[in-house]
């Protein structure tokens, strides 16, 4: 469908990903008690294969942004494109990872990973599903029920599910905020490893400044309601990254820069 698109990039001969562009996107929710301005006019360009983090305070419209890009909700003004296609209805070419793993209790792990294939009517992806589970160190649990897995393992299954159909965009909406700190570090390492090997365009929404920097090539700093981009920072570290880079001066200086933005708008007082 978009195979001939110029904006597609092939990395490592594996993933096929598309660029994402938002032009002057604005979202206003009308309500009986007045309008809620969720997202101010906002423009974002994500080249194919890039990993971008959006970091911002609670209620800055990050989840609204997710709904807009996935085509679950229409912007009040502006235009969103995945590849060269304007988003008008749900875009099945996006893999979404939510804050909760949302695994279906009644399906075994493998069945959960294969869910998007079933819904899109694709067959022959069982091998790919098992490979992904193997890559995420949960291969031995393919035939277990989700309740038999720990929280970190469940979220890894959720990421495998999102990646199954080789989506153009991997969208992660605060995916690790329910996990403990150690598991979260493991997931960060895993995510940037997978992002590299799959070559998928990635948009990670997070509250954690450290996570935002560690997992991305670029960090977008978002202000509170209405959501707007305050800064766009390049992250220069080579991949694959090790957790130790978080203690380097370069890393901490990026963190400071982001924190200063939040202090300026009053989100952080320090």
């Amino acid at each position, binding site marked *: 469908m978009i195979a001939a698109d110029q904006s597609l990039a092939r990395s490592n001969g594996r993933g096929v990903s598309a660029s994402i562009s938002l032009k002057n996107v604005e979202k206003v929710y009308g309500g009986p008690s007045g309008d809620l301005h969720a997202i101010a006019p906002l423009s974002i360009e994500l080249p194919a294969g890039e990993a971008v983090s959006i970091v911002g305070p609670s209620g800055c419209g990050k989840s609204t942004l997710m709904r807009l890009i996935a085509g679950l909700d229409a912007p009040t003004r502006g235009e969103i494109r995945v590849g060269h296609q304007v988003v008008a209805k749900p875009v*099945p070419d996006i893999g979404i990872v*939510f804050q909760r793993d949302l695994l279906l209790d009644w399906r075994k792990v493998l069945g959960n990973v294969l869910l998007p294939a079933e*819904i899109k009517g694709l067959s022959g992806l069982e091998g790919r599903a098992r490979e992904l589970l193997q890559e995420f*160190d949960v291969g031995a649990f393919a035939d277990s*029920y989700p309740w038999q897995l*720990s929280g970190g393992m469940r979220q890894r299954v959720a990421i495998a599910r999102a990646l199954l159909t080789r989506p153009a965009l991997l969208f992660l909406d605060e995916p690790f905020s329910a996990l403990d700190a150690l598991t979260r570090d493991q997931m960060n390492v*895993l995510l940037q490893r997978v992002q590299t090997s799959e070559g998928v365009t990635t948009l990670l929404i997070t509250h954690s400044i450290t996570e935002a920097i560690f997992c991305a090539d670029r960090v977008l700093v978002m202000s509170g309601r209405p959501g707007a981009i305050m800064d766009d920072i390049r992250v220069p570290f080579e991949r694959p990254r090790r957790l130790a880079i978080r203690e380097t001066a370069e890393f901490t200086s990026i963190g400071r820069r982001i924190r200063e933005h939040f202090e300026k708008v009053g989100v952080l007082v320090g």
Partner: protein
Amino acid sequence: MSVGTTQPIATVERAANAKTPASGASNLAAGMLWPLLSGAIGLALWEGLVRVFKVPVFILPAPSQVIVTIVEQWWYLLSQLAITTFAAGLGLVMAIVFGLAAGAAITASRLVDRMLTPWLVIAHAVPKVVIAPLFLVWFGFGLQSEMFFVVAFTFFPVIVNTVTGLKSADPEQILMVRAMGATPIQVLRKIQFPSALPSICAGIKLAVTLAPVGAVIGEFVASNKGLGHLLIRAVGDMDTPLAFAAVTVFSIFGVLLWRLAEWGERRVLPWHPSQREAFLRGAGT
């Protein structure tokens, strides 16, 4: 510190939980002991009192006499039970089909909910024994009347539980599959229906136990066959031991039916929290 270090968690949990079955089995045995003992005492008292006071058999037969009657007339009792079961089964299937469809319609449409639900509640509130003669007028004498009687007895728990179940689906899971491009039918099949299944099973279990009761009452009024008719006739003939035998057979059948329903539920819901202990027991050894 590789990611793999978290892997054994589930296996460890499984091993830890595998210890429970042994104590669980002894608990079960101890739990069975007391009701069996009290039951035996009760029966012995009954038997003794009937013999000591020479109670006429048409008023109250002794337990031993009931057992003798069951043994002597087992074929007659079972054949009548089969007739009752057939009517109950047919009615139950109708009630489940109707209940699922009505439940789905009520969940899908606010209008249907508003227009239908109050009438269903009223229909359920009407004392069924009172309208039994009307069923006779509407559906005639025999199986048909009986079947609709079973439906009247069982549709309500199925509908109520179907509605509750369908409404309990996780909105975020629905959002997720919609983002994958799911059609409304797919949302129903992949998310809403499986989420509703535990509730639906609970409703069907209730209906399964109510169905034979409905069938028997239907037979009281509108049939010349089945356990209900047998009961009426036995009482009319002053054959009280036969009536007691029928009630006993019916009760045992009810318990078996309940166990069957529970077995079916386990087969349908192996993933459900209520089944996890059994699952671990199976996997642990």
